């Protein structure tokens, strides 16, 4: 450790980390198997005839070895609980521990989905309440909790739009307009619905250009998919006119709710003319990301699309909750269950903790923090689009390029300084993007430490002290990894 490291105020990676082999390299015979309950009898003779021939060769470690192995694995990770995680577009906020506690109650965790409905009224009540809350928060009339993730919600939204247009006799409408700043999942979802995307060029301010939009609005348009605030962190102030234009042309407006954190409690997408919106509860409502999932992407809809919601649906009849499984108009079944219930229950607990009286503070503090970071960094880093940002701010590496330093180098140096990097090279509409989303659960002290680190990196560039940036990171258990080697000769199993 150098002298500088001991003086800086921010946390650094590089605590005690142990090298740890793969499970398969723990070279000893399988440990005694865990003791199990159950019937210790014969299996049927018929079944015996189908016995597996070759052992699966799953290692089998003792309990102490298993715990140590996976605890060491965990220590090679950076999580929100470890440090700042300003990953733009991902809303990495603190995940309350009480939510983890309540979803593990046996009466919620150990319910079989096909139990008689009278035996699951408690969980249905919580889910139904969440349905009404999501509609109220986003300004819509109905919702499906089923989609397993944002991209899944997006697919379901397009399926509903397809069903609605078909019901109107508009089978020919197959064009989906997508701003060039949109998330990459949009075209793939459209293709699955037998539709195709047409890209809208963003205006000079990074927003949707109304003239460009009008050019594409014809009799083939099925929908516009938009994110608001957009992926550059800016609010689409023409939202009302945009929705009106699309509706007048006979299309529908799909909202990507990835950025709802900027609006929650402050404004409602449903009031602006959007027809449906998926809500990433793992972003806005703080369900943990788990290293890539599970998430959940409920889709809220207005009256136009409500008839086409997928089945099954949770409905309330008198004092009893039921699960509706059939509906002729529905866009169909999209998941093998009612949804990622454990994730949804965490979102319920999160909203309950804020309630009507505090919910707006989520958006306020999130937007305050992003603008504060933008304000502190705007002289040292190029800001492609002037003005207020919402819950995330966009910078580029234009100034640093002059010194041969790229966004990737900035990101990797942040790792050595103890921070998870921002989202890099997205959105694609600017060169060398750095998208920073601090979220509302970070203190001013943390934001200042991060900004100090960013300013230090910019100063290192100016001073020509750039080798350290190209070499970074040096502190984690591994340095930059060779992605070309991994992709050329894929080695996916041991």
């Amino acid at each position, binding site marked *: 450790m150098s002298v500088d490291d001991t003086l800086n105020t921010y946390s650094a990676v590089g605590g005690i980390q142990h090298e740890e082999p793969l499970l398969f390299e723990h070279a000893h015979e399988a440990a005694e198997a865990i003791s199990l309950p159950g019937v210790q009898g014969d299996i049927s003779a018929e079944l015996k005839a189908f016995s597996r021939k070759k052992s699966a060769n799953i290692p089998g470690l003792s309990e102490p070895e298993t715990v140590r192995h996976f605890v060491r694995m965990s220590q090679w990770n950076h999580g929100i609980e470890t440090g700042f995680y300003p990953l733009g577009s991902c809303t990495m906020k603190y995940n309350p521990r009480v939510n983890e506690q309540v979803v593990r109650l046996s009466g919620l965790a150990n319910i079989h989905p096909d139990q008689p409905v009278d035996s699951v009224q408690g969980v249905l009540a919580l889910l139904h309440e969440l349905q009404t809350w999501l509609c109220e928060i986003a300004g819509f009339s109905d919702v499906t909790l089923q989609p397993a993730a944002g991209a899944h919600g997006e697919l379901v939204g397009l399926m509903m739009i397809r069903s609605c247009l078909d019901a109107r006799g508009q089978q020919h409408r197959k064009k989906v307009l997508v701003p060039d700043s949109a998330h990459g999942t949009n075209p793939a979802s459209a293709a699955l619905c037998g539709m195709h995307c047409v890209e809208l060029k963003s205006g000079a301010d990074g927003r949707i250009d109304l003239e460009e939009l009008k050019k594409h609005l014809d009799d083939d348009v099925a929908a516009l998919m938009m994110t608001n605030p957009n992926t550059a962190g800016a609010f689409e102030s023409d939202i009302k006119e945009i929705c009106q234009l699309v509706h007048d042309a006979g299309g529908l407006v799909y909202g990507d709710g990835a950025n709802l954190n900027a609006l929650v409690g402050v404004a409602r997408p449903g009031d602006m003319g959007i027809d449906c919106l998926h809500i990433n509860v793992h972003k806005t409502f703080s369900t943990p990301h788990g290293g890539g999932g599970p998430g959940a992407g409920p889709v809220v809809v207005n009256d136009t699309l409500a008839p086409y919601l997928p089945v099954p649906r949770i409905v309330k009849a008198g004092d009893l909750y039921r699960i509706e499984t059939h509906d002729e108009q529905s866009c169909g079944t999209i998941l093998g269950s009612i949804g990622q219930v454990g994730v949804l229950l965490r979102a319920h607990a999160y909203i309950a903790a804020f309630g009507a009286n505090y919910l707006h503070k989520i958006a306020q503090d999130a937007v305050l923090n992003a603008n504060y970071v933008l304000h502190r960094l705007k002289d040292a880093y190029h800001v492609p689009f002037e003005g207020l940002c919402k819950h995330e701010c966009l910078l580029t590496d234009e100034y640093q390029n002059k010194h041969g330093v790229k966004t990737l180098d900035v990101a990797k140096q942040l790792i050595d300084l103890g921070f998870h990097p921002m989202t890099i090279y997205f959105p694609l509409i600017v060169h060398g993007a750095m998208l920073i989303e601090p979220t509302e659960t970070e203190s001013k002290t943390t934001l200042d430490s991060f900004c100090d680190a960013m300013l230090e990196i910019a100063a290192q560039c100016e001073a020509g002290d750039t080798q350290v940036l190209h070499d970074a990171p040096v502190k984690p258990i591994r340095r930059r990894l060779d992605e070309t080697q991994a*992709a*050329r000769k894929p080695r996916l199993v041991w």
Partner: protein
Amino acid sequence: MSIPAGLKYTKEHEWVRIEGDIATFGVSDHAQEALGDIVFVELPEIGRKVDAAEAYAVVESVKAVSDIYAPVAGEIIEVNETLEGEPEKVNTEPYGAGWIAKVKISGHSDELMSDDEYTTFLEE
């Protein structure tokens, strides 16, 4: 930047070597450099008939995917199976061991450029 004489080039940065009624396809040095480290080449099936300017192969780098278009029309008669194990040959020897496919020519294209024309095209 290498642009050998004797080959024809397309605006999409493919090259073609025409010998009698057989044409060999590949991508230019400029193309391989723009693509970066190539990790996979999706080769066409033998016997497939392709039109001029039709996508017949796909080249992948770590972060990008590009369709590769046929400079002339023809039937695929041979593909460079070496690329299945060593896609990096497209980077190291784009005009040699990095060739992609051979076709039996069924039509010619007016769009092809000579090495000089391609050099000028790149400069523009």
